[in-house]
């Protein structure tokens, strides 16, 4: 039986959803015009006033907000409420040189946590469940978001945060945790560790997992499901829009339902900004309909994605987004094939390597070459050259099936991959085109 947290809105008809969106959008545009000078300037420049926005059909008249805007307006330039009404901030790691600080009123927090509660309910959780949140707590939205969602749902929450794997396992086993929330790579790691300790899928009390915040493949999903004996659900979100729970998977596991009563997704052509129809691949754009403190309109996520309004058997009516395939700003075209570093990372993680890699693209005799350099880890090293070569070949095969092209895999010594400001430089493109 499909479970819902807010069944009425989650299964509302398209007419009802549109009516809610129309009303909220008009109000939201007025809110930003009145309270965020940056928006007013931007709208004036685009020749739009709040009077021009009467329904969601007018959404396309609004200018986009980009990551660069966020950077320029840091820290307070996009704040939509007086500080006395703001109760919290969350922030991204800023590893790409674009630290985002997002603000929340209590209402914003409640809305965000409700979205997370919907995700937990869709994964089958109820107030009788024990939810272990192994996402990091703190500035990162993962821990606080799922923690709040679990509270809203009334589940018993174990706020382990990330790290200390053996303690995580102790809590899962001792308190019979039934739902696990963490990144997919950590779930895979936990699964491996539990296997090492002798726990089979039948011994592990978990029944579901909600995994997000990084790219993962279907193959990785199946592995995690098998090792932990659970059903693994994807969740999507970003700090700019609120955090995890902007969209979440249902029991169908075919795309994530976007919480359309709070967020309107659009797919655009990243070059022209033109809105693309259902089923076409492009850049994902979000409009927050009722966020107060950090009300982004038409925010360009740079995630490459596809939307589908097809009916879902779970009963939810909200549009589904496919798992983002990568980001517009790091896509490489190698021998005519679109390659995202996140795909390569997925293959490495799936095969037990650390996500410490560098992609070197070059052109030799008019043909693009792809060399994936991977740092050797103690887990992958043995005294047997044949075994190391076998593992290398598994990586080459995995990359071929993920990318559809042949890559070379080079093993390098630990900590030799060039880093800038502590973060590895992922891509070196030596091609002179």
């Amino acid at each position, binding site marked *: 039986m499909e479970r819902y947290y807010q069944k009425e809105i989650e299964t509302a008809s398209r007419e009802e959803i549109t009516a809610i969106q129309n009303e909220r959008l008009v109000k939201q545009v007025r809110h930003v015009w009145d309270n965020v000078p940056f928006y007013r300037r931007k709208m004036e420049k685009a020749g739009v006033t709040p009077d021009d926005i009467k329904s969601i059909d007018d959404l396309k008249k609004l200018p986009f907000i980009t990551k660069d805007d966020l950077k320029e307006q840091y820290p307070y330039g996009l704040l939509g409420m007086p500080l006395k009404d703001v109760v919290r901030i969350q922030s991204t790691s800023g590893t790409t040189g674009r630290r985002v600080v997002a603000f929340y009123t209590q209402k914003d927090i409640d809305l965000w946590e409700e979205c997370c509660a919907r995700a937990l309910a869709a994964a089958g959780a109820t107030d009788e469940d024990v939810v272990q949140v192994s996402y990091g707590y703190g500035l990162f939205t993962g821990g606080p978001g799922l923690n709040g969602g679990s509270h809203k749902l009334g589940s018993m929450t174990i706020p382990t945060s990330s790290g200390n794997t053996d303690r995580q396992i102790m809590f899962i086993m001792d308190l019979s945790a039934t739902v696990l929330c963490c990144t997919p790579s950590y779930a895979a790691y936990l699964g491996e560790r539990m296997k090492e300790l002798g726990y089979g899928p039948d011994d592990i009390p978990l029944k579901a997992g909600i995994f997000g915040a990084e790219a993962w493949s279907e193959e990785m999903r199946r592995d995690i499901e098998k090792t932990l004996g659970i059903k693994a659900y994807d969740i999507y979100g970003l700090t700019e829009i609120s955090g995890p729970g902007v969209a979440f998977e249902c029991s169908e596991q075919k795309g994530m339902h976007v919480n359309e009563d709070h967020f309107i997704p659009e797919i655009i052509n990243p070059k022209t900004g033109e809105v693309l129809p259902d089923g076409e691949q492009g850049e994902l754009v979000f409009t927050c309909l009722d966020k107060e403190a950090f009300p982004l309109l038409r925010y360009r996520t740079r995630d490459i994605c596809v939307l589908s309004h097809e009916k879902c058997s779970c009963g939810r009516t909200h549009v589904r987004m496919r798992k983002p395939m990568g980001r517009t700003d790091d896509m490489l075209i190698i021998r005519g094939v679109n390659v995202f570093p996140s795909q390569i990372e997925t293959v490495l993680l799936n095969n037990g390597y650390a996500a410490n890699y560098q992609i070197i693209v070059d052109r030799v005799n008019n043909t693009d070459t792809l060399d994936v350099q991977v740092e050797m880890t*103690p887990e992958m*090293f*043995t*005294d047997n050259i044949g075994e190391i*070569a076998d593992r290398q070949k598994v990586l080459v095969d995995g990359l071929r099936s993920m990318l559809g092209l042949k890559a070379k895999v080079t*093993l*390098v010594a630990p900590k030799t991959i060039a880093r800038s400001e502590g973060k590895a430089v992922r891509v070196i493109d030596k091609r002179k085109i």
Partner: protein
Amino acid sequence: MSIKQISVFLVNKPGTLKNMTSVLAANRIDMRAISLTETKEYGIARIIVDDVIHAVEILKDADFVTSINSVIAVEIPDEPGGLDTILADFAAADVNIQYMYSFVLNQADGKAGMIFRVDDTSGAEAKLSAKGLSFLTQDEIKAVTL
């Protein structure tokens, strides 16, 4: 009694082996035996040392990837046919050798040492013991003085 061998991942570039030996030298680790194997891009140094735990710790601190595994050390007479006799026992006991290397044990006594990496170390030891072969222990390796 098997002994512990340390394998060290080395990228195939000038100076990397020296980086490893410098770390060992600076920490007064005595190598009893060393063997190198290589591919085009990387190699593996396999070493037998007097203090395994300390050696692994300092190598790890110096960002080397290491792995420890059990190998068999056998004392053989340093004379024509010495190795052949031992290998006859291995063949008769149906023990497969992955790789092997030799080291100096005691020149005065005319003894050489051989390190064998086999598929199933403890199983091989049992079978070879039954053939009357004896093995050098970690303590004996450590106590070797030339």
